[in-house]
């Protein structure tokens, strides 16, 4: 057709006609009548007869093409049909998410029809809205709409096209549907002059009929078909990682235009941010003022503290500059920035001093992703790296209350790419010094007539352990800052009153935060006929792991690494003597160590209890089988009972 038109008409007319023809063909392509015929005799498989709705047919066509000038251009067409068994259980409110930084959405269509009847295409109007997600996925948009009215035993279908604005951020067919998919067809049209490598993520191993196609040759079409994809379940969305496994197929064109390795990913990022590695002399001089004589290590601390104190973190709602930081000058002028911009400010200042420093691309919480084929979208956080002599520093200035070099639990244990320079990107796992996280409780006092434990206490918290209380202090929504900390402490006990609370080192992040207080822990004494049971250490730390009969996949993240110690001193009294000493015990597993030591001194009974959570991550199967053991073990240090005898 194009040739005929070219011969007959001028360029202008030809283009217009081609568009019309394309639209016409596209209309035919969605195959209204075809689909209806296909669905007319549809019947739910016996095993799915209780599902409220099922995706009967999911089609995704990825088209890797080239523009006239030879640049890659990519789009995908998605269309799927859903069988609705029980209309009342299916939500008509639909949202199609896309990343506005790299993608644009077009031709969104939705229609519905009853089995064997005519299609009804009325939808309530499509709207676009920003989706507020966590700070690092800040470019998500959604197209929202209502489906046409649904009936029992009916169908609806949705189709849309995604255009990829940035070819380096397209790489996968993602099937995170909540419904069962009976048939999934992926077509990959490769009109490039290079091979497209394919890789399905692990979850596909659950399906029986996986089709493995390692690659799509240049100028060819590949078709992949899966049947019976089950919806994937998460157990504990808050602390199970990866949060949700996806059925996905990653596509890696082996062309120079695409990122193919860590180094290339680093280079892409480096090119975007090249200027941000440096800072003007005048700004450096300003910040270096008074710090000229500091050693390099001290200077790292100086810069980090400066950024931490002077530059506030602002999470951006929109931000097409998803991977391009603001220039250090802008950050200093604005006095705010997101993770990239504050990190580049640190890097530029350190580099100016001659210290080895570089930005670090972090993939927060998605350790399930395939990292053999890096993609830019995996970078959802940025921190800074510095090395002075043999000492390495991981610097995350968005952690406002972390001392220099301490990354938060969210950042630790993640894969990271240090982008030093062009062709100099290094992959690392961010490690956290586990010995340095400590919480030490000391509670010393007497029993009163009401059966309360009453006395003086201190709580010493180092590094990240202190962050929560520092946040409570600084971000207090009322003027009663100590009151918020008091409430925080009280929540550790079944019932208690905390009084005369004092706090020191709150502003000095490099020193432990010390909170001292008077306490009354209520109802610790149970009176039996021959003795008193005094139940102590209601302070608990190790995250209680909820039990579920479902199979846990992935891993469960604990609060570690952290060393949590409690010392309880019960003063001796004329009213009672010891009935039975507490047995010393110790338990350990790959994840934690627990220890209980009882000691009688001249003036008191002392209990030293420690919980050492060794790691952040627990593998799913380990947690699953050991759930009760963990709870049992914890009783060594939690709710320990001292048995006393009443005198007289």
């Amino acid at each position: 057709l194009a040739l005929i038109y070219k011969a007959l008409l001028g360029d202008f007319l030809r283009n217009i006609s081609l568009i019309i023809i394309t639209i016409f063909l596209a209309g035919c392509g969605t195959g209204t009548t075809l689909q209806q015929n296909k669905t007319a005799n549809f019947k739910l498989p016996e095993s799915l007869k209780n599902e409220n709705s099922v995706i009967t047919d999911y089609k995704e066509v990825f088209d890797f093409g080239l523009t006239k000038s030879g640049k890659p251009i990519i789009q995908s067409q998605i269309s799927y049909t859903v069988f609705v068994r029980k209309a009342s259980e299916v939500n008509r409110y639909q949202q199609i998410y896309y990343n506005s930084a790299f993608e644009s959405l077009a031709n969104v269509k939705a229609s519905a029809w009853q089995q064997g009847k005519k299609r009804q295409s009325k939808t309530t109007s499509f709207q676009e809205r920003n989706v507020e997600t966590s700070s690092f996925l800040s470019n998500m948009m959604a197209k929202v709409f209502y489906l046409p009215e649904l009936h029992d035993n009916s169908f609806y279908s949705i189709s849309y096209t995604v255009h990829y604005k940035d070819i380096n951020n397209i790489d996968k067919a993602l099937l995170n549907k909540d419904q069962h998919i009976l048939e999934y067809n992926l077509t990959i049209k490769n009109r490039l002059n290079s091979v497209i490598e394919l890789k399905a993520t692990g979850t596909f191993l659950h399906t029986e009929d996986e089709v493995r196609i390692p690659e799509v040759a240049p100028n060819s079409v590949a078709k992949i078909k899966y049947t019976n994809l089950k919806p994937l379940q998460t157990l504990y969305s808050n602390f199970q990682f990866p949060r949700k496994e996806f059925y996905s197929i990653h596509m890696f064109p082996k062309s120079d235009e695409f990122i193919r390795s860590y180094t290339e990913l680093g280079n892409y990022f480096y090119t975007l941010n090249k200027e941000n590695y440096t800072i003007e002399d005048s700004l450096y001089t300003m910040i270096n003022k008074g710090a000229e004589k500091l050693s390099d290590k001290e200077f790292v601390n100086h810069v980090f503290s400066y950024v931490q104190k002077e530059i506030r973190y602002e999470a951006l709602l929109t931000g097409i500059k998803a991977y391009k930081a603001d220039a250090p000058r802008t950050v200093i002028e604005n006095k705010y920035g997101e993770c990239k911009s504050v990190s580049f400010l640190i890097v530029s200042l350190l580099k100016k001093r001659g210290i080895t420093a570089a930005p670090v691309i972090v993939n927060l919480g998605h350790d399930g992703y395939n990292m053999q084929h890096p993609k830019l979208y995996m970078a959802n956080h940025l921190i800074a790296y510095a090395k002075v002599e043999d000492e390495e520093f991981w610097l995350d200035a968005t952690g406002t209350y972390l001392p220099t070099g301490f990354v938060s639990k969210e950042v630790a244990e993640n894969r990271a790419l240090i982008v030093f320079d062009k062709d100099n990107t290094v992959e690392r796992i961010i490690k956290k010094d586990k010995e340095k996280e400590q919480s030490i409780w000391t509670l010393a006092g007497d029993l009163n007539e009401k059966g309360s434990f009453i006395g003086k206490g201190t709580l010493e918290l180092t590094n990240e352990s202190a962050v929560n209380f520092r946040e409570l202090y600084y971000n207090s929504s009322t003027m009663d800052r100590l009151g918020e900390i008091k409430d925080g402490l009280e929540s550790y006990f079944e019932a208690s009153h905390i009084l005369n609370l004092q706090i020191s080192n709150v502003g000095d992040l490099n020193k432990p935060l010390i909170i001292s207080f008077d306490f009354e822990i209520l109802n610790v004494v149970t009176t039996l006929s021959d003795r008193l049971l005094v139940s102590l250490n209601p302070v608990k730390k190790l995250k209680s792991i909820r039990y579920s009969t479902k199979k846990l996949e992935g891993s469960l993240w604990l609060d570690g690494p952290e060393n949590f110690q409690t010392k309880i001193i019960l003063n001796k009294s004329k009213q009672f003597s010891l009935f039975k000493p507490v047995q010393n015990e110790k338990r350990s597993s790959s994840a934690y160590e627990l220890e209980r030591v009882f000691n009688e001194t001249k003036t008191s009974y002392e209990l030293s209890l420690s919980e050492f959570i060794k790691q952040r991550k627990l593998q799913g199967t380990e947690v699953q089988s050991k759930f009760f053991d963990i709870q049992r073990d914890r009783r060594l240090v939690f709710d320990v009972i001292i048995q006393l005898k009443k005198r007289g």
Partner: protein
Amino acid sequence: LKQTFLILTALLLFTSCAYTSKRARFHTFNTQNEASAEFEKSVSDFGAYYIATLQSIEYNQIANVNLTATVVEHQRLKILNKAGYQYARLIIPDIELKKFKATITKADGSTKTLQLKDLTKVTAPASLPVINHDHYLVYSVPGVEENMIIDYSFEFTEKMSFFERMYISTDLPIHDARYELTMITHFKHKVKTYNDLKRPTITHFGEDKERKTLYSWHFDNLLPLKKESFSPSPKRYTPYFIGVVNKVKTSEVEVSIVNKWRDLSRFISVKDKNDSWFSNKYKDELERIKKANNKNTVSALEIYNFVQKNYKLDNTVDQGWDPDKVIKIRKGAWTGLNRTLFILLKEAGFAPSYALLKSYNTGDFDYSSPSIFEFDLVVPMVENTPLLPFSHYPMGELPAAYQDILALDFQEKSERSFRTAKTDLEKNVYKLQVDLTLNDLLDEKINLIETHTGQEAYRQKSPERYYLEHTTESDKKKYKEVHQNYLNGRFADMAFFSVKNEHVEDVHLPLIQTYSVGNKKVLTNLGDEYLIQLGSLVPKMYTDLISKEERIHDFDFNYPNLDQIDISFKIPEGYKVNFESVHFEPIDNHYLYQKISIDQKDGKLTIHYLGGTKVRSMPAGEAITMRQFAENIAKLRTTKFLIAK
């Protein structure tokens, strides 16, 4: 061209002058630059404060028909120290602004004008306290430093058919807070204030073309309101004011403003298409109801039950408000289900009316201010009983928020106020029954049976019904997680092996939930003895109220309720119990009831807990009794005994 240009310029100048002169300008924003050093010191922990704020609503009558409101807001914020840097932001409603102006003044006196387009839009802080508008955009102010003053103001126009409430709330201290309301004088109107708002200063303006009456409120040192657990919803204690037009002189204006309750009929759609109170076309449906009940007559209860059972609530149904459609497709939006019930009652010969209900949480009904904001629900009513066919409530029962409130009975030709029914604690009962043996504890399998009646049941059933029917798949999952968290919060340290719900769908029966749980805390093996802590199975309740802090707000318990907990342990043969009885001081006053005992008889050790709140709200002065109440529960939860062979 030149001439046209001149004419256009002149026209533009003329219209803009005319535009400005048309507006009455009453704004009395305080232009002082700071508060006293003493004040600044007292609020320095906040890190920032407003030197002055102004919120002004001015009603304008345009072309004798439409009413618009010009809203002006002006803030002057001072950043005191680093803790206040986070407040360096402009908070602007997400609508088209008529005017916008923002400047920053640094400590050295230098000033800079800010343009919205140059600023970075950021995520709105969750703590945004403003409740006057729904959607805000938040912009971060660049270059914040100590003692910087951020001054910004904006103006927008809204079409008004009703008068909105203006809430006096803030997230930071305000040294000089002003609120203004400007009414059109020749509308007979009044301005009302609520929740202890000081009396307004009223200024009358002269005989100019646009006569207006200004009301203004001025607060010195306004502080953020503190929240407490079990405190009423903020709308019940945040001061607010509202302007009400009682009479409008021109007949056209009546079209656009509600000045008497009758005017609302067009908004609540109580009339059908033929503008009569319904025709005779619903006979078939009534016949169906009669047939379903095998009767020749039909009662209001039967109609209610039929609608509730057979019509599904679906707020996404197109034209879900139309009774014809609702009857045809057997589902509708809540308004549609209400209207359908109404017409069926009418058709059956009852004399239904509409009840306008205002949730207790949004403040009390004010009859002198006819406004769509004065109520949240319009439901059919027969014999003084508001009916909620879209809900999970049996006929005659109301959600807690609509109990014991003043409501409006909206009849065909008149209206009257009435008070809705209330329930007492014995109707809303939560029961927990656990019978244990040593083997159960050794096997780590405990069966708990919870029975919820009255509000306790509706509260549990309604969200389930709501979430399952009307949200996305991921919301449903979220709900399940919320429910799991709820259980985990209530029964600390428990593992739930199985959960079984009975009567979720049947609105008339109590909800029975049976759990099989594991709890490591109940039993501890101490060598040759077993330590048993039965109380650890008592739900963790009212823990927050143990606090010794002075109580500011009254307590709000949502509804009177009674908790009845019985936990028994069968003492195994050959074992002896080592336990000394514990005394729990009983509580029985106007507001609270609590009786706890631990008995040992017939080979069983039993915990009996009976306690609850007799009223919905209780004065703050009762905090000491409340603390005792909460401490008793904590004591019960920690009580232990030993058994030995």
